[in-house]
């Protein structure tokens, strides 16, 4: 087990390395560098740009140096915990990102949990009672769930709630808690608002999970060992839960790795629609105004955390299924 964890961990390092390069490339992609954009906007406001200041800034961000030196410097600063300055907000990137990344993960993980809690029993039900009315209903629902883009669901949901209850679901906090420091009341307030994005995000993901669970369990249910157990007189409920469900669970856990990037993606776009204070809206803003240090850091952090999440789910899977640590 330890050997597997170490091997998996070492494999993660080149991935993280590629991520940092890709994020850096993305920062460099737009035509011109962010200073030209910045200078253009300053020139528009003040009419004059201090050449000495420009040169100083250029030097400060290392824009006068070749690409690889800039990459190394950027990485070096990142590792020391200095994320650079957001040009648009004129605040350190770290300050801007911190709470938003946290909330993004709170939403994603809550959704993941809820997805499991729903998909698990529904999947088992659908498989055991295959081709029953309930199975058809869940199948139809999950097809629609898979086919509807998250942002559309968010729009429809907002519209429906507004029409039915005259209540605007946007935001994650009530007005009075928006700027308040964290305390119990604020957490409770968060929970009160959290269900909206979680429900919207969950619909798509849960639908996929139900399909997976159903298919996996159906594959197992007709295997000889199940027949043997049944012929020995094991009660049906106990039989299903104890053997086939446990086997069907494996591919289920392995999908967490794929589900996490999807959830982060979904959170990004749903947050923009619902106006949640997560990474989504700020990332969009940063990309549109070419605030590339902020955008690059977002991309880097989101990808890194996803890779780490995938790593954790792989370890969980290996712990569940010994065959994987021996062959994978």
């Amino acid at each position, binding site marked *: 087990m330890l050997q597997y964890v170490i091997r998996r961990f070492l494999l993660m390092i*080149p*991935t993280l390395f*590629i*991520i940092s390069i*890709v994020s850096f490339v*993305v920062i460099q*992609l*737009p*035509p011109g560098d962010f200073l030209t954009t910045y200078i253009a906007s300053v020139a528009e406001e003040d009419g004059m740009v201090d050449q000495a200041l420009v040169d100083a800034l250029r030097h400060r961000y290392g824009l006068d140096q070749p690409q690889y030196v800039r990459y190394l410097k950027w990485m070096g600063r990142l590792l020391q915990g200095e994320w650079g300055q957001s040009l648009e907000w004129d605040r350190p990137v770290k300050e801007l990102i911190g709470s938003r990344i946290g909330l993004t993960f709170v939403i994603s993980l809550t959704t993941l949990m809820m997805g499991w809690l729903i998909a698990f029993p529904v999947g088992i039900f659908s498989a055991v009672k295959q081709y029953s009315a309930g199975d058809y209903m869940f199948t139809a629902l999950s*097809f*629609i769930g*898979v*086919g*509807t*883009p998250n*942002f*559309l669901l968010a*729009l*429809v949901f*907002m*519209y429906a709630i*507004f*029409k039915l209850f005259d209540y*605007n679901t*946007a935001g994650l906090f009530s007005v009075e808690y928006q700027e308040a420091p964290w305390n119990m009341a604020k957490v409770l307030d968060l929970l009160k608002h959290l269900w909206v994005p979680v429900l919207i995000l969950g619909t798509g993901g849960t639908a996929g999970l139900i399909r997976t669970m159903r298919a996996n369990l159906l594959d197992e249910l007709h295997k000889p060992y199940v027949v043997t157990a049944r012929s020995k007189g094991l009660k049906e409920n106990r039989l299903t839960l104890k053997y086939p469900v446990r086997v069907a669970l494996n591919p289920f856990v392995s999908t967490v*790795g*794929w589900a996490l*990037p*999807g959830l*982060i*993606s*979904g959170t*990004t*776009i749903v947050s*923009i*629609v619902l106006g949640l204070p997560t*990474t989504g809206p700020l*990332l*969009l803003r940063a*990309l*549109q105004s*070419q605030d590339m240090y902020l*955008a690059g850091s*977002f*991309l880097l952090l*989101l*990808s890194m955390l*996803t*890779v780490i999440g*995938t790593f954790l789910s792989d370890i969980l899977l290996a712990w569940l299924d010994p065959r994987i640590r021996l062959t994978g």
Partner: protein
Amino acid sequence: MSLERQDTAASTQGQVLGIQKAIALQEEERIYVASQWQLMRWRFKKHKMAIVGGCVLIVFYVLAIFCEFFAPYDPLKFDPKLIFMPPQTIRFRDDNGLHWPPFVYGIEQQIDPVSFRRTYVLDPEKKYAVKLFARGDPYKMWGMLGGDIHLIGTEGNAGPLHLLGTDRMGRDILSRLITGARISLSIGLVGVFVSLILGILIGGFSGYYGGVFDTVAQRLIEFLRSVPRIPLWMALSAAVPPFWSPIKVYFGITIVLSVIGWTGMARVVRSKFLALREEDFVMAARLAGSGEFRIVTRHMVPSFLSHIIASVTLSIPGMILGETSLSFLGVGLRPPVVSWGVMLKEAQELSAVALSPWLLIPGVAIVLAVLCFNFLGDGLRDAADPYAR
């Protein structure tokens, strides 16, 4: 097989059983002598939802190809007097009973002096006949064929005919929906085509030759699949310069979508290559002296072509959703280009949607298209392996 027959000819049961046996045998023989493509066709026909999905998609694509003709209006034509007008209904009866030809009532805009809210009132005095093949806005189909005949309309645009309402600039939603289909549905195909070429090249090489190339390619694929795709897409498409022409932006976005899309394709191709490389018939071809190229194109590709077609179909919805999401966020296609995502962007504000819910109609089209592709893909996937079960 033929149980009814058994009932009617009960007296000569033995004979009937004999006939049944013969029919069963014939069926079986039919299966034995059928070509692989025939087997696939039979298998596919069993999948009712796939057939329905395929038919709906054909309709969609025909609408998209001839959108200038099917759209009642020019999708960019705006009318400040008809802003946020609710959908009209075509009427077949008036106060005197049935009325032919069908018609729409005239419509009058009234602005509330206090809230500035627009309301639309029917004007029962004015009736406009709705005609098939009516003359309307002039267009140039595919930028070449000029014309002004539309499938449906009021002759010479005499009266308003907005069957799905209008948007914030008084543009006809139905026309925009049909025109948007051309972009939204084609971007899926083009994107998948680009992904397919990349996927076959990279997946094929890494599956057939293995080694270092395979390891590197696998790392890369794993990386691309573990990155949250919407943020990556957003970042890449934000890098598309704003001064590009719409057609360049279109291809730029397609390439952005393919950056992740090819990975799925490459995985399928690679795993198929890995499995087929060891097959006896490949070995036989090699022993018979076939060159590498011939083995790949003549023996290996045909045997997994059906799988490729199935996974291509299943990856189109992802592309469509990608374009829609990006355009919706404003980093994808930009007006004046009309696509479903661009249209939905207008529905981003709760206040707009709350008063004019018909702005959400493009969403219905998206869900329908995605579902149909999923059904069709499911059917094709089952058909791709006609020997299973």
